[in-house]
């Protein structure tokens, strides 16, 4: 095994092209668990911690551009938390402080778990994922990026560079059902926004289908919306909850989220 530590994005992309089987590691909160339990033994780890271009966030032509290495702790801080309130709320529910200080939004996309808490808030912000390789760059809308449970559209030579997301154009919120207030994988989760600019309500759910899913409707159809969200999900029974419970919870969460947003 070896670790490669590039000092720039260009170097990182060159190394990824030379070692297509290498596993990128950013916060390590998913990768290290795999290594510690010997569930993975990759030939090469690509340590992205020293790549400056992946850090922080910026405003970009009316959008917010989140570096792949943005941590949850950073997502909770103003003024970013004011531009993306649902992402900030979701970030607050991730793990505990130690996990939020290391875990990143890019890592959540890399893992692409149906329970990834950053995903619903990004989906309601019409997120587009910026991917790069030595061949060039491409932008992939988040729903297309998420191709299945723990699967995504990354090619072997590509890295996630950033996520472009719309700032909130109206109230938004995030809710998560779990046995505790901290350190839980969601049983089901929901991000919702009442977007007055686009005269639209948008919701996205987690842990209620093979991938996090987006549902939208005109504001005039707010009444039937909770049913619509519940119907769009395709939950399964597992150790964390039953499909019936998940669907019902989604309906309840949608009602509450709409109430919270219209308050």
């Amino acid at each position: 095994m070896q670790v490669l530590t590039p000092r720039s994005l260009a170097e990182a992309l060159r190394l990824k092209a030379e070692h297509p089987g290498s596993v990128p590691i950013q916060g390590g909160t998913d990768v290290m668990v795999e290594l510690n339990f010997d569930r993975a033994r990759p030939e090469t780890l690509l340590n992205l911690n020293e790549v400056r271009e992946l850090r922080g966030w910026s405003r970009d032509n009316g959008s917010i551009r989140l570096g792949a290495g943005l941590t949850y702790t950073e997502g909770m801080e103003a003024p970013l938390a004011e531009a993306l309130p649902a992402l900030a709320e979701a970030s607050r529910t991730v793990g505990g402080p130690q996990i939020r200080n290391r875990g990143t939004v890019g890592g959540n996309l890399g893992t692409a778990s149906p329970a990834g808490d950053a995903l619903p808030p990004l989906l309601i912000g019409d997120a587009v994922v910026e991917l790069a390789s030595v061949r060039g760059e491409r932008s992939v809308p988040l729903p297309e990026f998420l191709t299945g449970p723990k699967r995504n559209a990354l090619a072997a030579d590509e890295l996630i560079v950033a996520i472009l997301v719309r700032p909130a154009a109206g109230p938004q919120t995030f809710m998560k059902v779990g046995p505790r207030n901290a350190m839980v994988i969601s049983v089901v989760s929901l991000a919702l926004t009442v977007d007055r600019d686009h005269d639209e309500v948008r919701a996205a759910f987690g842990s209620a289908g093979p991938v996090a899913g987006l549902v939208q409707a005109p504001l005039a159809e707010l009444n039937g919306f909770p049913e619509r969200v519940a119907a769009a999900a395709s939950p399964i029974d597992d150790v964390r909850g039953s499909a019936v419970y998940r669907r019902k919870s989604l309906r309840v969460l949608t009602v509450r989220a709409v109430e919270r947003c219209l308050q």
Partner: protein
Amino acid sequence: MRVELTVNGERLEADVWAGESLLYVLRERLGLPGSKNACEQGECGSCSVLLDGRLVCACLVLAAQADGHELVTVEGLAEDGELHPVQAAFAETGAVQCGFCTPGFVVATADLLARSPNPSEDEIREALSGNLCRCTGYAKIFDAVRLAAGS
């Protein structure tokens, strides 16, 4: 591979295996067993250290990622043989039973009080939500945090 890091103000070097965690390096290669290994999956917080001033689980940091960085472990909190106020408060209130979780709680509390010297009850609970204790029931740990905050 070789990594070079500053631990509690001292420059140290270690030869490590590429897949190794920072926790393993601290405990097994640098003779600093204060940070405990209980779960190796980020769930218990007993391996909490400050990496470049930020509270992290050492079990989830790849040793190579700490190369060139600064670390404070529980061993680095006491100064000139005097316990850190948080350590003294844990001893004073009896917040220690088996003691396995204590280094992690002490480091997490020191981090909290450095950022927020007079934390609210909610802030304390939030700040310690990544640390587990199987013995105390937490009441005395919260007493210790309040005592340290007042001192």
